[in-house]
């Protein structure tokens, strides 16, 4: 459908999406509304129930949201830092870079560890996906993707394959061949197909299923073998930038965060959005579960990281400081969940005390944005990927105050 030209009598913020644009003035059930042409199309396709006008829907939405906040507040009898007062303070951290992985010729956008605790896969704007043995610095596999900006990559639980995707709108699974004569990329299999860029992907508990999230606002669960779509998840109103699988007993949920400032928790079986949190003031760049699965953290362009409790159904901590003005792009927890590592767009990594809400330490070293931080599976090291074309493996050790 093409955008029809029309005479615009007014210009201003659209009643639906808020962007300033030429507005169409129409009447629905005697209520005047001013929509931009895009929202007009959307509305025409969705249709309204009998007795509903856009104004009433809007009002209902606002009142429901208010009631939800009230309900959430009712059981809020104590704050996290109060409960944490009795906990010992985390002392100084000794932080040392142990490995620098050089090989990408452009920004490194994503990385993931292998379950063997030493191998990792990284993907970059240069279109390449590299599998490294982080311990020896050997590059074990190097694969070229058809497009640049490979924004997502993941290692399969078995260690026998990797998944990656980006501007090609697809997520592909590549089995790792040991035959040096074989071109790994040739065996690439397209599994996920979206209508916009792939921003994140992860295998579920086995090599057979893949979760992907995309700039088209949806996430999806795929069967790797057949490429079949098993379930799709709708609810975000803008690009989704990150997802994480829950480490819970029943292993059926995952969380996504996106440009609509919302973090949503989904049920993989039914496709339903079971919980939603809208507390950030800007795009959410990354979401990561707390090791127990009862909470998750998010990193956002509003320069804060936040901690959300799933059982209490609310935000319980905000990690921010006046001197931190650049957006946070990535987060991960330490094994015990006591520390939160956050990578920022001002090239630094800040380490936060999750329980007390304070910043413990600041890491310098990268020469451009930190795009991803990930703890190794056994918690022995932290890997950071950056727009300065390198990855670093960092060892951190904490000394408690006497």
């Amino acid at each position, binding site marked *: 459908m093409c955008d029809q030209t029309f005479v615009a009598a007014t210009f201003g913020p659209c009643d639906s999406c808020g962007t300033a644009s030429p507005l169409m003035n129409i009447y629905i059930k005697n209520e005047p509304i001013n929509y931009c042409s895009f*929202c007009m199309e*959307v509305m025409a396709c969705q249709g309204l129930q009998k007795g509903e006008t856009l104004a009433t*829907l*809007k009002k*209902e*939405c606002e009142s*429901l949201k208010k009631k*939800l906040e009230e309900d959430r507040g009712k059981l809020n009898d104590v704050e996290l830092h109060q*409960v*944490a007062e009795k*906990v010992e303070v985390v002392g100084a951290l000794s932080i040392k870079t*142990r490995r620098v992985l050089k090989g990408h010729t452009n920004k490194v956008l994503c990385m993931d560890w292998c379950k*063997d*605790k*030493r*191998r990792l896969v990284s993907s970059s704007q240069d279109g390449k996906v590299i599998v490294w*043995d982080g311990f020896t610095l050997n590059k074990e596999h190097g694969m070229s993707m058809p497009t640049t900006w490979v924004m997502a990559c993941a290692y399969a639980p078995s*260690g*026998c394959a990797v998944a990656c995707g980006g501007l090609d709108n697809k997520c592909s699974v590549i089995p790792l061949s040991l035959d040096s004569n074989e071109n790994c990329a040739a065996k690439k299999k397209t599994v996920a197909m979206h209508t*916009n860029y792939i921003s994140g992907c992860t295998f579920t*508990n086995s090599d*057979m299923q893949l979760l992907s999230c995309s700039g088209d*606002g949806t996430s999806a669960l795929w*069967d*790797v*073998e*057949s490429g079949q779509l*098993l379930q799709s998840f709708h*609810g975000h*109103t*803008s690009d989704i930038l990150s997802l994480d699988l829950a480490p819970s*007993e029943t292993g059926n949920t995952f969380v996504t965060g996106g*440009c609509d400032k919302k973090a949503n928790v989904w049920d993989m079986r039914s496709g339903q959005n*079971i919980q*939603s949190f809208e507390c950030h003031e*800007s*795009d959410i760049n990354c979401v990561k579960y707390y090791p127990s699965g009862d909470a998750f953290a998010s990193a956002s*362009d509003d*320069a804060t990281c936040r901690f959300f*409790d799933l059982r*209490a159904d609310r935000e319980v901590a905000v990690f921010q400081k*006046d*001197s931190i*003005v650049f957006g946070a792009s990535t987060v991960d927890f*330490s*094994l*015990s*969940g*006591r520390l939160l590592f956050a990578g920022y767009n*001002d090239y630094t990594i800040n380490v936060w005390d*999750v*329980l007390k809400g304070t910043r413990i330490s600041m890491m310098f070293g990268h*020469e*451009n944005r930190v795009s991803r931080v990930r703890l190794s599976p*056994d918690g*022995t090291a932290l890997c950071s990927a950056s727009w300065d074309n390198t990855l670093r*493996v960092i*060892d951190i*050790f*904490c000394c408690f105050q006497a």
Partner: protein
Amino acid sequence: MTINTLAKGGWHREQMTCFQKMEKVIVAMQDPDMGMKMRNQRLLITVIPHAMTGHDIITWLIQKYSICEEEALHLGGMLLKYGYIYPLKEPRSIVLHPDETPYRFQTPYFWTSTRWPASELDYAIYLAKKNIRKQGELMEYEKERYSVLHKRINHTWDFVVMQAREQLRASKQRRKADRIVLECQEQAYWLINRPPPGVGNVLDMGLERPNNFSLRVTLIETCRRALGRNRVKSSICLEGFVKYSEQYQNHDPIMQGCLPSNPWISDDTAHWTMNAEMVPTPTRLRVECWSFSFMELLKDVMGRKEFMTYLEKEFSGENLCFWQACEDIRHGESSKIAEKVEEVYKNFLAPGAARWVNIDSKTMDKTLEGIKRPHRFVMDDAQMHIYFLMKKDSYPRYLKSDLYKNMLAKAIIPQETKKSVFPFMRRQRHSSPSPAQAAAQATEEDGRGKGAGPAGTNSDV
């Protein structure tokens, strides 16, 4: 400068936020009461007002935000990189020096956020001015860009030259100090927005995130559902986090170190070898972990094996087998679901089955009904029932059993490796077989397993 029309593509939302925050800092720095002390700076023979030294900037930042010097240097450096402050004496050196080097605030007219993105037309006019003012003042890379622009926007070139001349004429009528200041500001602006080759483009913001769709109707449904959910009191939830951190502290290499040593520090992979999937004797920490939660026990291959041994002693081993078979269905290939479900029914659910599991009749009926049209989650209810049965009943008894206690007693506590006396002697870093290789070997051996072949070598990961 020409008036900038509405930029194509509009704002990057992420820029807005961080620019706004930086501008807040800058405004605070110029606050008449709490801001920085300005002084006059002599530049050759002219006196430039309202300048400050690098040292002043850092001291102010340290005091205002209660941060250390390193962070203040970093934050100040960022303000410089984004063009909010510029160096007076060496404009091309966009580095914050913590000494008497003079800096000035950029005027809001030239803030990156005010005129985003920098327009080609303006750049052409700037270069033209430089060219006209003094022949040969353009640097090599500027000359190249000038000629590229000349080709690209040739149709407006008369306008460019005319504007350049007008602006030069207007500036001649200004006081010398003002003229120098304006030139400095303009030069600083272009050094940021059109950096020389080799200098990274700080304004590279990555990909745009353009999409926005309105789904007000589903929003209402989500809200309605959220209102009905059960919530837990905050005190209980938050206590849970404290407990979890305490419980796992000893297992967290960052908090407590790891024995015998962290492989990334000592280059010794003993820690990984000792904690491999299958070892003759597990470490103490690992066995302790099995007592933290049922999930920890099941997640560990060795733990599961031990638990199976215990269950078989109690004649309830079929429960764990059933659970594992259901996991296999849930996470396996779609194409194999039907046959796997059939297998599970035959072995565990059919009346008189060899390893019949005890499920309540309601769940059994529901499952049997579902099996008629098998799908990935058809066994979920039954699996959940057996899982909780094991968790509530067999698991606690296992932890009290001799089997577990003996395992705990004979578990290894590795000796901490003494740090090397000669730190410069680095151990050789050995590579390990790739998991892909181990899998390939396994399938190969399976293939010739039936015949008499040499025993495969044990590769330790």
